[in-house]
């Protein structure tokens, strides 16, 4: 097994990596001087993967919505009825897990006994234990998690935007599923998903801290069976029309003033790694240059009282989906929506001023450098980038690949003012009872 090492002079940061015979990709980012170690062990499997082909089978398997997240909760279960949290309690580590659209990850941070904790992490993620009883028990807990999000206006305005953008792409479905869909989850279904997606070739282990990759590999040898390598898992192809579902979507909730998101659908899919990275960076640069704190547009909207400091933007670009959101709170989301559309129309003609783009580049670079201030931020950002095929240390290099022309091209094809959506959460009219 060959261990590769690279060093970035500008960042003064290193990366060591190797592919284990099982197919597991292992990365170490040595972080000397930090007290904390961080380990994140992820599978490229998230809420969007509800139809897939199990190796050796001819047909597609369809599973209930929310199962990836349910599986994440149940992985902590141990044979003796205890859970992995209690094992970490013995070492003092702080552990957690999360499920996103396209990934499930298990993690811990610690300041002591790193290899002992790594041993626990590799052990519990590599041996599932699902029973009727422990699976049923989780319905109540996840049911409350779903209800918590139902009342969260930020979460609702986000998912409503995706519902208005996407016809078929499963990214529009809530990550935790629904109370109804999770009721259909059985131990047998969990095992099927587990054995398919928790195969080492579909997983990545990222270790941040003063870690020796050789030693870490010994623990991998012990827990990860090379025979479980099933390779990449084919997913059912999503046929997604390029046009939006509906222009406007609105929901009433207990909020003080309207919350809104303006959403843009990414139709430039099926790209190779380099093209996807360029697309992502170009989108980020547009968001900073056109909608960021330094922009003319923000200043104008703020001065007119149409937006406040909650105004923000984000892009989520992955292999299976992509979208960009701009939003915040506003007394008049419709007015903001129209102003943003007009502003974008103008930019299509005039282009983004070079000065604004240069500043956006500095902001982007600064953000990239700052990520190295925190072992958690490093681990979380890098595992995502590794699944996407990016090189985590190539920050300036990736940025320099993106020309001003690339940015303009992205502006024209992605920020289509006739195919965007406005999602609004408006205040419920109700008497408050004490």
């Amino acid at each position, binding site marked *: 097994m060959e261990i590769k090492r690279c060093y970035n002079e500008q960042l003064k940061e290193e990366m060591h990596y190797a592919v284990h015979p099982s197919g597991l990709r292992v990365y170490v980012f040595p972080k000397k001087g930090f007290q904390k170690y961080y380990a994140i062990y992820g599978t490229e499997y998230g809420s969007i993967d509800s139809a897939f082909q199990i190796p050796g089978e001819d047909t597609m398997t369809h599973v209930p919505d929310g199962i990836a997240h349910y599986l994440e909760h149940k992985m902590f279960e141990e044979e003796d009825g205890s859970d992995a949290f209690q094992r970490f309690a013995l070492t003092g580590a702080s552990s957690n897990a999360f499920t996103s659209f396209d990934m499930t990850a298990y993690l811990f941070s610690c300041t*002591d006994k790193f290899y002992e904790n790594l041993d626990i992490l590799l052990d519990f993620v590599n041996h599932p234990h699902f029973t009727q009883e422990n699976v049923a028990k989780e319905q109540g807990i996840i049911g*409350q998690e779903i209800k918590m999000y139902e*009342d969260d206006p*930020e979460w609702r305005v986000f998912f409503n935007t995706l519902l208005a953008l996407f016809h078929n792409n499963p990214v529009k479905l809530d990550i935790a599923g629904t109370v109804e869909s999770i009721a259909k989850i059985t131990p047998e279904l969990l095992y099927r998903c587990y054995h398919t997606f928790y195969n080492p070739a579909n997983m990545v282990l990222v270790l941040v801290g003063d870690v020796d990759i050789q030693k870490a590999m010994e623990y991998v040898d012990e827990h990860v069976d090379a025979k479980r390598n099933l390779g990449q898992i084919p997913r059912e192809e999503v046929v997604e029309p390029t046009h939006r579902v509906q222009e406007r979507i609105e929901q009433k909730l*207990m909020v003080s003033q309207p919350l809104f998101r303006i959403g843009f659908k990414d139709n430039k899919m099926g790209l190779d790694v380099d093209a996807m990275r360029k697309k992502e960076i170009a989108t980020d640069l547009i968001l900073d240059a056109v909608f960021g704190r330094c922009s003319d547009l923000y200043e104008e909207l*703020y001065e007119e009282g149409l937006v406040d400091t909650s105004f923000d933007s984000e892009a989520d670009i992955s292999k299976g989906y992509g979208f960009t959101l701009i939003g915040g709170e506003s007394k008049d989301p419709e007015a903001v929506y129209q102003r943003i559309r007009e502003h974008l129309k103008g930019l299509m003609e005039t282009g983004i001023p070079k000065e604004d783009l240069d500043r956006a580049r500095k902001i982007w670079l*600064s953000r990239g450098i700052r990520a190295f201030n925190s*072992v958690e931020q490093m681990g979380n950002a890098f595992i995502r980038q590794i699944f996407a095929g990016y090189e985590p240390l190539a920050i300036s290099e990736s940025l320099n690949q993106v020309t001003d022309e690339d940015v303009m091209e992205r502006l024209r094809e992605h920020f289509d003012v006739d195919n965007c959506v406005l999602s609004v959460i408006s205040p419920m009219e109700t008497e408050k*009872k004490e």
Partner: protein
Amino acid sequence: MQSKQICKGVDLRVIPSNKFKTNALSIFFHIPLKRETVTMAALLPAVLKRGTEKNPEYKQLARRLADLYSASCSAGVRQKGDGEVLYFHMDYIADAYIGENLTEQVVAFLRELVFCPLIQDGGFSPEYVESEKTNLKNAILSLINDKKEYADVKCREAMFGKDGYGMFEAGYVEDLDAITPQSLYAFYQKVLKEAKVDIFVSGMADAETLDVITKGLEAELLPRDGGYIATQTATADREEIQYITEEIPASQSKLSIGLKCGVEPAGEEYYALLLGNCLFGGSPFSKLFMNVREKLSLAYYAASRTDRMKSVMVISSGIETQNFQKAYDEIQLQLAKMQAGEVEESELAAAKKYLTNGLTAMYDSVRALEDYYLSQAILGQNQSPEELIRCLEPIGIPQIQAVMQKVQLDTVYFLKGVEA
């Protein structure tokens, strides 16, 4: 942390480190939490951030920050026991990564922002004050958007009343009308002249850097009498538990339970309280997590946390409306177990390790360490997280039991979700 007095009432506090990509510089003004000034204090940083005498437009300030390799600047208020701090925080990329030392420019920026505001007719810009009043009003009202936070704030208010510690630090909508550009400016001048000041420097802090910072700010900070705001420790004083129910349209109900602990924050008992909270509801192996969530499946979260300075504990959970009694009974049962000393030695060992991990990890976060040492300064201590860890070691179950017996339920705030 190393400290040096710049002049009476103004201290420079330094947390040196060379492992971060950024350096940080903060100014804190310590003021009492008072009903008369809480709203003005919340409004002031927002007005200052809008523009200065030399750069009257927000965009100019934002662009200057971006040009400094996207230095970040935040300003606001943070509650500290019976007092609050007005903070101005900046961080910027260290010269090793960009080949340019930004310290002088960052100090100049901070100086301009805090000390050279845009003044018109003996007050702040009326336009900025009006627009930030509207924004603050929206921020205060939008508390309801986060139901958990809302329940916690209302619980605290019910425990301590609408003054001092009981207040919502963002202030009150009904105060806004009376605030004028002149009255806010007068408040600002008084704070500048009288309030105790701490300047924190984190990151590369060689003599030259500290010199640049001191020289850049000392002319603005004259000697003053103001000191830290002392906090009166909350002690059980209610004969009967206060129960409050508020109905709102929501899928989930929120439970916020306030307890008074009566523990001196700078005394020995605090160590037992810290461990007691970790065992009761401050960790994933705590009694609340293991029973309310894992055993009874009543909630996704059920946790407790303490405010060291005020000696208050808050238990929060999100539950099904009809499960209120079940959850409440279980929480009381688990508290009773803590008070009966029903804790295993292995659990205590786990709690010590868990807290050691958390406290040691603070050394990796500039913000966490700065806030920790700020609280230390207010408490009149200079105990490092490492020293705090050592103080936890000798604590045994009897001490935790004794401290938990002082912890008394005060208020149960039930934010009851009902159908719209």
